[in-house]
């Protein structure tokens, strides 16, 4: 495993989606572009995303997730037992109409290919992001299970097989994305149970990413992270990824108030504005966090995925983030 510096930098997962790739994705839905051609475009775009992250100085990279239409459909199409109406969307980032009508089976979710792609094209530490059971339950219609909780737990069971395979393949960093917790705080008890079922028996660094949504580059909800505590402390994960750049740092106090066993993967880059933060501003945000969180318990990342930002903006934001982290590290010596 690649050794990481203090305050390691990472991404949430998605990288800037080129306009040409958006058009190709939409054209694919209208049968104007072939699967083969689209896959070739994905291949090029993902390599470019990897390269950009490396050049920007990110310590733990992703493949940019540019082959995923969105965080739901990628999994809905792959989870055996979920029926997807492929004629139900015109724009790639819309959600398919998808439904589960029988008990889910197990099968490949395609994430091993992501892991192999990353290992083939980069020497950096890397991570694979997985949409969490709660997010999937909120978007896939359930016509079989007696409750959302039952559906989520069975999704977790199926996804656990893939996650175990990933770890066997050598993946060291995993992330579970749960952007809907903030809109449905009442679901938290069973949602955390489902996360624990998903990561059951695996030995990797797992981050639970909980944001306020980033559909179309906008938040889906507003509020504070207070609703997470103390229930989230029961999650069997190593890190909690929360957004602070756009929302301000008030919720850092929660890490003082509660005995939090996790590393904080702190969002220090606002992904909902094209304004590029300076490295100095990012360093200041990190330093303020260090007043609350010990250095060995802090990771640095953007608030959320970079998919809605123009490539130049995304790259400059990552570069500033890496430089900001470096500035803070210098001060630690």
């Amino acid at each position, binding site marked *: 495993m690649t050794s990481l510096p203090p305050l390691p930098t990472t991404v949430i997962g998605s990288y800037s989606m080129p306009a040409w790739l*958006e058009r190709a994705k939409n054209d694919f839905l209208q049968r104007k572009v072939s699967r083969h051609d689209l896959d070739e475009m994905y291949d090029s775009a993902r390599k470019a995303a990897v390269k950009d992250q490396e050049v920007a100085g990110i310590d733990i990279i992703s493949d940019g997730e540019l082959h995923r239409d969105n965080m739901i459909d990628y999994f809905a199409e792959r989870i055996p037992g979920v029926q997807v109406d492929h004629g139900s969307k015109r724009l790639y980032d819309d*959600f398919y109409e998808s439904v589960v009508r029988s008990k889910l089976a197990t099968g490949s979710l395609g994430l091993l290919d992501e892991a192999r792609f990353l290992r083939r094209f980069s020497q950096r530490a890397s991570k694979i992001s997985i949409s969490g059971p709660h997010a999937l339950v909120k*978007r896939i219609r359930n016509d079989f299970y007696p409750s959302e909780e039952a559906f989520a737990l069975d999704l977790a069971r199926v996804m656990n097989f893939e996650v175990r395979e990933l770890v066997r393949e050598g993946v060291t960093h995993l992330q579970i994305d749960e952007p809907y917790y903030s809109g449905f705080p009442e679901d938290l008890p069973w949602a955390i149970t489902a996360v624990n079922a998903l990561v059951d028996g695996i030995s990797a660094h797992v981050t639970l990413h909980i944001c306020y*949504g980033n559909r*179309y580059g*906008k938040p*889906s*909800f*507003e509020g504070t992270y207070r609703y997470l505590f103390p229930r989230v402390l029961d999650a069997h994960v190593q890190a909690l990824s929360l957004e602070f750049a756009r929302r301000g740092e008030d919720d850092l106090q929660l890490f003082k108030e509660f005995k939090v066993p996790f590393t904080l993967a702190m969002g220090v880059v606002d992904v*909902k504005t094209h304004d590029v933060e300076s490295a100095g501003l990012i360093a200041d945000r990190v330093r303020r966090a260090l007043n609350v969180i010990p250095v060995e318990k802090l990771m640095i990342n953007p608030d959320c995925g970079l998919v809605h930002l123009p490539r130049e903006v995304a790259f400059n934001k990552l570069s500033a983030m890496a430089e900001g982290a470096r500035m803070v590290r210098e001060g630690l010596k």
Partner: protein
Amino acid sequence: MIIQRNYSPSALPKGTDVAELTSRIIGPLTLLIERSGIDQDNGQGLRVHLDWIQYKTSFRDPVVVRRAVDQQEQPLPLAEISIDLRQAATPSFNEYLTNAVEVLKGNPPSNGHAPFVLDTFKPWRDSIIWPFNRLFWQQLGDWEAYAKRGFEAALPSGGSDANHPEAVKEGVVEFWDLLHDLEKRGNLPHDIYAMEIGVGSGARARLWLDQFQVYDAEKASGYYPRLKFLLGDYSPSTLDTALAAVGPHAPLCSVIPIDATNPFKVLSFLRFKILYVHLTNVYDNLTFDEIARRDNKLYIVEVRPYVSAAAADRIKAEFGFSTAELPGAIKRLLAYGPESVGEHETGMAFWTRIWEVLRLEERLRAIDEGDESHLPKGVSRSPLDDVLSEVPHDIRFHLSRGAAESFVNTAALLHPRGYLQVQDIFVTSIKEYVHGFRGPGKLDGSFVTWVNGAFLHAVGARAGYHVNFAPFTHRKGSKTQILYTKRRD
């Protein structure tokens, strides 16, 4: 020759004998063309558009010729004659037809009197109508005093639909319901931001605030004191008037001098915080372009202002400006107001006269593949592609660029549960453009043009919103519709 019928017979006045009307025009026109010596290639590609322009006054003569050029302004074979059927009864109509054919051949008009051209060809967005429009709103009081009527009297209904009490009450209840739902979920922000852009007299804002206060008191919900109501308009003097109009609600209100196409520019500190934004009759007065598709190729419509030779003669007789002096006088008028061309009354007379006789010649300029300069700022080409994919054939439509920019830059301010409502004249399906002329038409010293709702629908989808339209039902015969937004999941 291709004849294109751009109107729906059902939209014409009762008793109109369409067959008789069109045959009375097409017959002589065919004769003129056949005898004109126009070569066969150009004659075959010639399109004759039959329009029915419902506006009492517009920028079009009864018959106009449109030529096409490439990006380097080199002529292309495509040419069009556009005929306003409504003006077919004009006494000199046949003369217009004859002149059009002469112009197509590259000859001067048959009567020898060429129109006097005032400027070069420019896209609509950069055309001379915008300085006229600005002057009108800046000096509205002068115009109204001179015309001896308020500008709202020029509206087809004689007034604005914005201030209908029942419609406002409906909006208030809808907003209260949102606040109540947010409160139940523990997500109601302490400061409740709402905004009206284009406040005009402030009458609607006053009505809305009155009704919200009453409804809030009835429900004992305590939202009214938490309200931060923003009055937005580009004119500081209008904002002063509006602030006075809201009377007792003024302590809750802030006036914001604002460019309706980019509210985000001055309100970025309220990003994702505003719960409700309302606009009435703003989008139809924001910049637009027109796009035409001919044989699967896109063109942007460019216009060039002119006055007819006869009108130029009348202006010389009335105001003393020769044709050589006319462009300078218009420039002064638009830059400094009516007093810059004479005494106030003379200046006002000149302003109204020149606006009355102003016409716009049109041409089609090819848009090359990859050229995106015609797109509104902040909007990719995808929404336009979406709209075009709905109509496979030739079409000409508005690219409501100001409205699209306004939409995108307002949506950026909306709270995750916030919404935008716009009352205006919308073309809600792109197919409607095939069946009717949608402006611009002159309206007092300003103009009105329909807003391409289908384009806004596509822009909204890319920005994360479902955009829907509903007719305004509180006044029979109203042509306005209400645009509603709803967040896409």
